[in-house]
C-alpha cells in the first residue's frame, strides 16, 4: 500500500506556480529521496504534504485517506512527522524536554494537567529510547539552543521520531553540516530504516547521501516532475543530467 500519495498537486503563489501537476506515490517502507535544483519546489511539496498550506489544486492521500483538508496537527496525529530546512527546536528547553513534549503528544497526553506515575515513567522510557537511538543520550540535560548545529538537527529528528510516525519527512537533514556530522546523520537514517516499518521521504542536496540511502529518487525541476526511478536509473537519465549541468553552467 502507498503510505503517501500525491495526486496532481498544483501550488500557486499569486502568479508564481511553485508546483505544477505533480503526482507521487511512496509505498510503505520505502526511502524516497526528492532532489532538484534550487527553486524546484521541493520544500513546497513538503509543505503541501505536512499541511503547512493547502494545494491550489490536487490532493494528498496518507495511507489511503484523503488528508488535503486536514490541519497540520491532525496529520501528525495520523502518523506524519517532519523536520525543517532551518532547524526548528525549543531552544530554551533541555534536549530531554524537547523530545518529551513530542512523546507526550504522541501518547495523547497533551491536554493533561497531571500524569500518573506509570504514565510518566513510560513517557520517560520512551524519551530515553529515542535519545539513545539518536545518539543524544549524553546531551539530554543540555539546553537545545546550546548544542552544536549538527546536534540540533539530530535533536529535531529525535523529536519527530518520538511522535512514532509512519511517515517521516526530512527536509535537508545534512544542511550546513560538516563531513563527519553528515556521516553521522546518514548512519542515523540508516538505523531508522533498519529499526522498523518507517517510510521516509527525504529532500537532500548532498548526492552522496542520496545515492547511499534512497530506494528510489524523484527529481523535480521548475515545479514539475522531471524523472523518477532507482538511483541507477536516475544517474543514467539524460534529462536529469541536463537539469543539473544546466544549473552548474
Amino acid at each position, binding site marked *: 500500500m502507498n503510505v503517501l500519495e500525491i495526486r496532481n498537486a498544483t501550488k500557486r503563489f499569486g502568479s508564481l506556480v511553485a508546483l505544477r501537476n505533480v503526482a507521487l506515490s511512496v509505498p510503505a517502507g520505502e526511502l524516497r529521496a526528492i532532489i532538484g535544483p534550487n527553486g524546484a519546489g521541493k520544500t513546497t511539496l513538503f509543505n503541501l504534504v505536512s499541511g503547512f498550506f493547502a494545494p491550489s489544486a490536487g490532493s494528498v492521500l496518507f495511507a489511503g485517506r484523503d488528508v488535503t483538508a486536514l490541519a497540520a496537527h491532525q496529520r501528525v496525529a495520523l502518523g506524519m512527522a517532519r523536520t525543517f530546512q532551518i532547524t526548528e527546536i525549543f531552544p530554551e528547553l533541555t534536549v530531554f524536554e524537547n523530545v518529551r*513534549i513530542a512523546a*507526550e503528544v504522541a501518547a495523547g497526553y497533551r491536554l*493533561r*494537567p*497531571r500524569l500518573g506515575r506509570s504514565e510518566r515513567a513510560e513517557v520517560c522510557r520512551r524519551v530515553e529510547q529515542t535519545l539513545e537511538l539518536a545518539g543524544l543520550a549524553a546531551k539530554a540535560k543540555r539546553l537545545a539552543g546550546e548544542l552544536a548545529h549538527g546536534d540540533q538537527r539530530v535533536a529535531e529528528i529525535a*523529536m519527530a521520531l518520538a*511522535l512514532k510516525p509512519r511517515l517521516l519527512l526530512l527536509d535537508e537533514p545534512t544542511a550546513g553540516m560538516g563531513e563527519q556530522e553528515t556521516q553521522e546523520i546518514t548512519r542515523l537514517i540508516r538505523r531508522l530504516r533498519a529499526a522498523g516499518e518507517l517510510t521516509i521521504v527525504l529532500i537532500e542536496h548532498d548526492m552522496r547521501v542520496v545515492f547511499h540511502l534512497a530506494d528510489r529518487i524523484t527529481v523535480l525541476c521548475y515545479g514539475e516532475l522531471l524523472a523518477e526511478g532507482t538511483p541507477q536509473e536516475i544517474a543514467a537519465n539524460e534529462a536529469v543530467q541536463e537539469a543539473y549541468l544546466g544549473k552548474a553552467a
Partner: protein
Amino acid sequence: MNSRAGAARQAGTALLWAALLLAPYWLPWVGGYTALGARVLVLGLAAMSLNFLLGFTGVVSFGHAAYFGLGAYGAGLTLKLLAHSTPLALFFGTLAGGIAGALLGALIVHLRGVYFAMVTIAFGQVFYYIAFRWNSLTGGDDGLRGFARQPLHFAGYAIDILNNGHAFYYFVLVCFAVTVGVMALILRSPLGRTMLAIRENERRARFLGIPVERHIWVAFTLSCFFTSLAGALYAMVNNFADPMGLHWSLSGDLVIMAVMGGMRSFWGPLVGAAVFVVVQDFLSSITTNWMSFVGLLIVLVVLFFPRGLLGLAQRRGEA
C-alpha cells in the same frame, strides 16, 4: 542546570515562603502594615496569573485588568446582593472573570503578536465602560460599596477575617498558596509543556501535533480564571470595587510587575508586584509628581532591565 543552582533556588523558595508566612510580624518593623501585605499578595497573584500567559506561553495580553475587575465586581455583587458568604463570593467572582476570558479568548486566539495585544487592550476596556455607566448596579464612578467580607465557618468554628487583619492576611495567603500551587502543577504537566513549546517555537509546536490555537485558548482561559480570583480577593481587601480595577492602566501595571520581577521566573511577578506597590506607595507619599517617576521607572526597566530582577539573579547564578 547544575545542582548548586538548584539548591540555591530551593533555598530561595523556602525563604520566600517564610517571609510570606511571617509577614504580619516583620512588616511593621520596616514601616509596613498587614493590609499592605495582603495587597501585595493579591496583586502578586494577579501578576503571576498574567505571567502564566506572558512568560510561559509567550502570548502578550495587555488587558488583564478586565478579568481582575470582573472578579472584584463579581465578588462584591455576590456579597451585596446574593449571599453573605466569603467562599461563594470568591467562587462567583472567579467564575465571572473566567467565563468572560473564555469567551473573549475564543474570539482572539487566532491573532498573533501586536494584533493580539491590541485586541486584548481594546476588549479590556469594554468592562470599564460598563461598570462606569451602569450606575444602579455598580455604583458607577464612585465604585461598588456596601458589602463586606464575611467570617469563615469551619466545622463549628468561626474565623473572623473581617475585623482581624492577621486572620484575613492568612486567609489571602491560603488562597494564594492554593492557586499558585495549581499553577506550578500545570506548568510541570504535559499541558504546561505544550505552553512552553508554543512560547519557544510556535511552528515546531504545530508540527509536533499541538493544535496551537486551542492550547493558547486553554492557557488564556486558565490565566483569566486565576487573575479573576485575585480580583475577587482584591474586592475583599478594601470591601470595595472600583472601575479603576478594570482600567487599562491596571493592565499595564500588572505587565510591568511581571516584567520587572522577571517573566521567565515563576516567582518573578510576585517580587515585581512587591517592588512596584512599595515604590508607588512611597513615591505618592513624597511627591505629587509620582506618576512621572513611575513612568520613568517603567521606561528604565524596559531599556535596561528587560529580564527583570529575578532574571538578573538567575543569570548571575548560572554564570
